[in-house]
């Protein structure tokens, strides 16, 4: 990993992402915003899935709570984005702390089931609490953050509001990626990997497994909340669908598709899945059928995901080159 870090891929990626609005297409900006936000959502999940080995089937709960938090604060209370956005992370993190406290006590499939149960509880509340969340109808018309100062800058001043929001999204997502990258590279990240590989052994060498798992759960929830906060604004509305269990499985699919063994794997998965979705839904309404088929092929043929497959291909080429 350290050998490859010489090329500043991260920086190049951010620069490439920032250049999208200058292509001038409303559509490209739309897709790119979607990808950036869901990439953060999927990478946050991977902190549990890939790094700690915990299968959360209810990650959408934190995403949705983040979306409702930012949406409610900005729409109903008129709180500026600077405060409403971090609030999404804080609230989602707190919720993850409460739920996670119970979840980390269970193993494997029971962990997955309890995360799912909690997420469905959150969904049921958001679905029915008409006064606060708008219930089934959701909460439309979330305002954009006030980015008027961008209009006074050269170059970006010409762009649309949605482009401005996209630029903000890219910067914030990049910042989150940087933070998460620091997390998984830290001794804490190594502890998580140890827990994934062998929880009994980790416990044996003095690692308080549950406590670290809980911390990972809270962090993953908080970052999912931040992604949700952005998504509500991007989507111009927050709806209970954000929390339904099928949403949780979508983000799991992104992580698997990209490759959960790699930090940016889930982000690649989000990119591929969303672009594919845009392409295929213009031909046929049967996107779920296509998605299901892709998923089945993936599970059987490329269990390491796309990045895993690319990585294996690259290694084989290197070996051939050496021979």
């Amino acid at each position: 990993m350290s050998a490859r870090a010489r090329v500043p891929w991260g920086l190049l990626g951010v620069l490439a992402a920032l250049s999208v609005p200058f292509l001038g297409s409303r559509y490209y900006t739309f897709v790119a915003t979607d990808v950036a936000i869901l990439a953060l959502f999927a990478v946050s999940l991977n902190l549990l899935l890939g790094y700690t080995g915990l299968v959360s089937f209810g990650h959408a709960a934190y995403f949705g709570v983040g979306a409702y938090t930012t949406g409610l604060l900005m729409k109903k209370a008129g709180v500026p984005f600077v405060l409403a956005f971090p609030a999404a992370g804080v609230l989602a993190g707190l919720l993850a702390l409460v739920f996670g406290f119970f979840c980390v006590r269970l193993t494997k499939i029971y962990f997955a089931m309890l995360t799912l149960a909690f997420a469905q509880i959150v969904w049921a509340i958001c679905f029915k609490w008409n006064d606060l969340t708008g219930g089934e109808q959701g909460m439309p018309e979330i305002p954009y953050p006030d980015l008027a100062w961008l209009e006074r800058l050269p170059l970006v001043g010409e762009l649309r509001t949605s482009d401005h929001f996209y630029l903000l999204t890219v910067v914030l997502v990049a910042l989150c990626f940087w933070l998460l990258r620091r997390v998984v590279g830290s001794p804490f990240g190594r502890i998580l990997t140890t827990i994934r590989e062998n929880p009994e052994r980790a416990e044996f060498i003095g690692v308080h497994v549950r406590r670290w798992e809980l911390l990972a759960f809270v962090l993953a929830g908080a970052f999912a909340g931040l992604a949700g906060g952005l998504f509500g604004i991007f989507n111009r509305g927050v709806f209970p669908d954000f929390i339904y269990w099928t949403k949780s499985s979508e983000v799991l699919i992104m992580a698997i598709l990209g490759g959960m063994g790699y930090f940016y794997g889930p982000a690649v998965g989000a990119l591929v899945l969303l672009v594919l979705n845009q392409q295929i839904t213009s031909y046929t309404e049967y996107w779920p059928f296509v998605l299901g088929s892709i998923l089945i092929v993936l599970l059987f043929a490329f269990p390491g995901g796309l990045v895993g497959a690319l990585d294996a291909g690259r290694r084989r080429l290197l070996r051939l080159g050496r021979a």
Partner: protein
Amino acid sequence: MPDPTFLFAQSLSGLTAAMFLFLIASGLSLIFGVLGVLNFAHGSFYMLGAYVAYQLVQVLGRDPAAFWWAALGAACAIAVLGGLVERLLLRHLYAKDVLYQLLFTYALILVLSDAAKVVWGTGQLSIARPPELAGATRVLGTLVPHYELFVLLLGPAIALGFWLLLHRTRAGRFVRAAALDREMLGALGVNVSRLYTSVFVLGSFLAGLGGALIAPAKAIVPGMDVEIIVEAFIVVVIGGLGSFWGTFLGAVIYGQVLSFGILIFPRFSIFSVFALMAVVLILRPWGLLGRPLKT
């Protein structure tokens, strides 16, 4: 204090819902108990059972016993489908992580629900009640459709049959043994792989049968697969995954909580069920009547 007739009607409707749920959930629980796979696609099998039964009723037309043949035919068709899925695909994932099995069965939901939309469209379909059960009887002041009474009797009958199969036959003994220790069973010379297929087929049969039997009581619509799987899932978690009587108990509790929850918190009845499930998972992750899993 609400009047007793109303309470009776309410608990009866909860009980009917419970019997349907038991049909679905028992298959789900059996498959989990033996194969260790949480089959999300179980709801899709149930939905396809309803659609296939609808199709068969159309084909059989005026035959007085059309519905019964259709129900049986649908259950068998779904059993075959389940067998194919297990034999060709699912078995290759047993050695892999739980996640792969979960996502595989989730992928099946996506594929099957769209396939059903292609074949049967997105509109509501329905099957008429079989003529011999078309009427209704007044029980303790409540009008109860005969079909509902039939379901109320059928649930315990199937439970009993299922229990006899598991506890009084040689095959049933193998199934119970496989749930406890599959390696040991294999070492004793039982073909575990074939046993797995049989269990999956049986579970799918029950799902298909459940779908076919609910068709006269409810509309057949896309989306019934996801709806039922969440409910069945709650039932088995409450009762205990893999526990037979647990599933029965879970279904009864679910039905009652849902139908009385509506009275107590009109808007949050669905919430009360999820909350019950979470409490059970926290206190007894293996369910009310389940057994803790070996790791």
